[in-house]
């Protein structure tokens, strides 16, 4: 039996590697995506264009503006003399933020009254707007504290002192890059496996395979193991790149990471084979793969936190293998967590893998077209 399954695996690998097109799909797009995602997909804001409308023209207001511009976060692109230019600038997306300092600013500060500073932010991209406001807020808080100290006032009773555990500089690259391991492994495995049965259906070789003495479990193994091999290699390359190129710390051991990877790739293979055995043509398989891929990334916690989703959707994400693997891969990378921590994730992925592989094997023979 093993000899026959081995022959199937060798054939499958040869078919993938001998075809220059599928060989390219395995190497070039993941590499490009790794670089693009690694650098481009970040929540950190840099050089946000702002306009300054300083009506006070005092030392204090110049200090505040200097603190805004001193950070690399904001960059002045306009200085306004009248309020009328605010709306056109924001409408034209020339600036994301307008800092407007009232002409009573210094007077209020000196008379110990709350000194109003107006921030007008472009709210069309709500996520960015919130981040900008957060930065601006902390600059204004710092300014207030400095002012009080310099003018011998009593400091405010409670002072915030933040330490970020696991990611001291709050670099979003540390958060995103381990996630890319999951995303790219899923894309490549799903494409390799998802198209394989459909391709054989198109050329008629799948019927040929079904009339040989192969049992459906053996076909499943023969189709799945090459995917496991390719997905594993792909993931290892990205893990290496994450550590060596992006400098993300790999604090945990390899065992919990690879155990998670094994279960994750197995569940992706199961889903890929299911799509593949339902599809009649490669085109249908490709559409099916994307139909699965997009929501699975959206609902995985790769970019947006699952905790923010409505409860029903949160429950739904349990069916998403990527959600579980993201917890494992981020946990191992940043926390250095051990395998014991991930038992619920391992169990969930094992369940998804088992169910989907079984369903795929069943569909191989039952599917009538």
């Amino acid at each position, binding site marked *: 039996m093993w000899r026959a399954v081995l022959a199937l695996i060798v054939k499958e690998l040869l078919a993938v590697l001998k075809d220059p097109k599928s060989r390219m799909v395995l190497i070039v797009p993941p590499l490009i995506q790794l670089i693009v995602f690694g650098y481009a997909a970040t929540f950190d804001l840099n050089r946000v264009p702002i306009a300054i409308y300083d009506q006070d023209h005092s030392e204090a207001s110049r200090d505040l503006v200097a603190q805004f511009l001193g950070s690399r976060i904001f960059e002045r692109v306009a200085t306004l003399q009248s309020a009328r230019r605010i709306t056109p600038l924001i409408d034209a997306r020339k600036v994301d933020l307008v800092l407007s300092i009232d002409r009573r600013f210094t007077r209020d500060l000196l008379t110990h009254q709350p000194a109003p500073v107006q921030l007008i932010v472009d709210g069309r991209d709500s996520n960015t707007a919130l981040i900008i406001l957060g930065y601006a807020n902390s600059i204004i808080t710092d300014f207030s504290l400095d002012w009080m100290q310099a003018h011998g006032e009593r400091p405010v009773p409670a002072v915030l002192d933040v330490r970020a555990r696991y990611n001291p500089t709050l670099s979003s690259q540390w958060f995103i890059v381990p996630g890319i391991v999951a995303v790219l492994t899923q894309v490549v495995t799903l494409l390799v496996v998802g198209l394989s049965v459909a391709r054989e259906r198109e*050329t008629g*070789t799948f*019927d040929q395979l*079904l*009339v*040989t003495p192969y049992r459906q479990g053996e076909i499943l193994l023969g189709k799945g193991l090459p995917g496991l091999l390719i997905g594993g290699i792909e993931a290892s390359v990205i893990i290496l790149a994450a550590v060596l190129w992006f400098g993300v710390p790999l604090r945990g051991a390899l065992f919990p990471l690879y155990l998670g990877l094994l279960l994750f790739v197995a569940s992706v293979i199961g889903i890929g084979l299911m799509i593949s055995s339902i599809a009649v043509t490669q085109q249908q398989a490709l559409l099916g793969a994307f139909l699965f891929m997009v929501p699975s990334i959206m609902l995985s916690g790769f970019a947006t936190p699952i905790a923010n989703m409505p409860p029903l959707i949160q429950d739904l994400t349990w069916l998403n293998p990527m959600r579980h693997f993201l917890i494992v891969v981020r946990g191992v990378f940043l926390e250095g967590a051990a395998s014991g921590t991930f038992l619920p994730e391992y169990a969930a992925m094992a369940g998804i893998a088992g169910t989907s592989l079984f369903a795929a094997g069943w569909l191989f023979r039952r599917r009538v077209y």
Partner: protein
Amino acid sequence: MPAESELPPALRLEGVSHAFTSRGRTAAALDGITARAERGAVTGVIGPDGAGKTTLMRLAAGLLQLRSGRIEVLGIDVARNPDDARSRIGYMPQRFGLYEDLTVRENLDLYAKVQNVPRAGREARDGELLHMTGLAPFLSRLAGRLSGGMKQKLGLACTLVRVPEVLLLDEPTVGVDPVSRRELWEIVDHLVRTERMAVVLSTSYLDEAERCRSVLLLHEGRLVGATDPASFAAQVSGRSFHVSAAGTGKRQLQERLARTPGVVDATIQGAFVRVVTESGGQLSAAELSPQATPLTIVPVPPRFEDSFVALLKSSSPATASPGQAIARGETPEENGSRGTPSPPETTGSAGNEPVIFADRLTRRFGSFIAVDAVSFAVRRGEIFGLLGANGAGKSTTFRMLCGLLPPSDGTLRVAGYDLRRAAASARGRIGYMAQKFSLYGDLSVLENLRFFASAYRLLEPHRGARIAWALEEFGLGPHADAVSRELPLGFKQRLALACALMHEPEILFLDEPTSGVDPLARREFWRRINALAESGVTVLVTTHFMEEAEYCDRLAVLAQGKVLAAGDPESLKARARTAERPQPTMEDAFIALLEAASRPRAA
């Protein structure tokens, strides 16, 4: 107005060559073709798949960029004035782009709009087209619901919404049932006769050549003949015979005759062996049969195919088709017939019990009944054919027998098993060769053989021996490392058969095994199948090809999911025998059956 003969011809090709490049390799599709097609006549472009027919048609229609040579349509240079030429051409590709979700009328309207046909006069033209194609009663039917033959006719009607001067038809009759095929030809003849249209029609069916005014014979991209069919066939006149021998099976007789010196071609035709000799004159029984078996020899009129085979065999080895050496009966054949699998051990089933058995086999897809209570039985060592047009239900029956599709109703037994429910090992008893030779195209010949040897669980040293046997027996040795996708069609077919025979199966399933391959490769293929049947292998063949039906011991003729008739080829043909047709062909028999089947319903 000048006389027709002074006008430029409908189509003129001058030194036309074309090559396709893929993955750095160049494959010549056409090689220096110089030919012409006359006005007001049907010109056949005839040759097996891969001969370059479609390339030639597409070049003539201006759909492919001409690289070398010159093509003129009605005197217009196609490369220089493609739009001008295209406005006078009607082109129907192999798979005409019908919109299956639109009705017949909507398809016609759409093509009229696409072709910018003015509203005025369309009414009359449509009526004429619908009358000609017999589609008038089906105007509101969805194109996807039409039969294969009706789809082809609708495609033709859509091509003709604008009256072209030159009509290019690329394999319009492939896979179409014989009745529709005859009707398509009647339409073509009608167009030529009444509208003086020039028709250039490509086909791989050699018997269609006889319906053309002139033919261009293509073989591996070369023009090997350009004549009128009658005088082409006459080249072998007096050299064709029907031979039969009392007491000798037709297959042994054919095998022996094929090896006799002086015999160019020997094929099975029902109960007879059709023989074409090297030189004319009366064939003497003594010459053919030194063992003095009493032979009956009847001279028969020459066929187009006889000449074609004689021509291919006499052409130089460099241009020979892949199967030539073996088909000629030279060395590989000697060890070949000995190398064919030894008779498989008999199964538990005793004596006369059928090896393949179907009883009221039915398959429904929704409300559509693809196979309707089909019953037949095949004995050991028999070659059994399922003959029918595309959509007749033969592929569905075939897939049920192989265990690929569950029947909706009825019982079936293959070697005593229902392959769908039986243990996986039961599948090791059957060999399967699918339509279009499904092989792993990216893998080399050797890798394909190795894979199937392992798939059938052959163990060393037997496995190695079988792979060596396949390479040797099928002449694949020199191509062992060639990528199978790039093999010529004849070699693909050999490789597919080699893979199917790897494990010496007792039952062989063949789905359209020789459709489109050249006549020599087809002969070689059937020689092997005959040898296998002689050694006790049971063979089930599906085909829409009348000629392949002749090789069968018995056949079931299928139409619309039902068995119209079953029996041996001779008795089926005998049913169609009439006073004006004393020697009906298989096609005549098929048409007679279809007509008989539709008559009670029409009444």
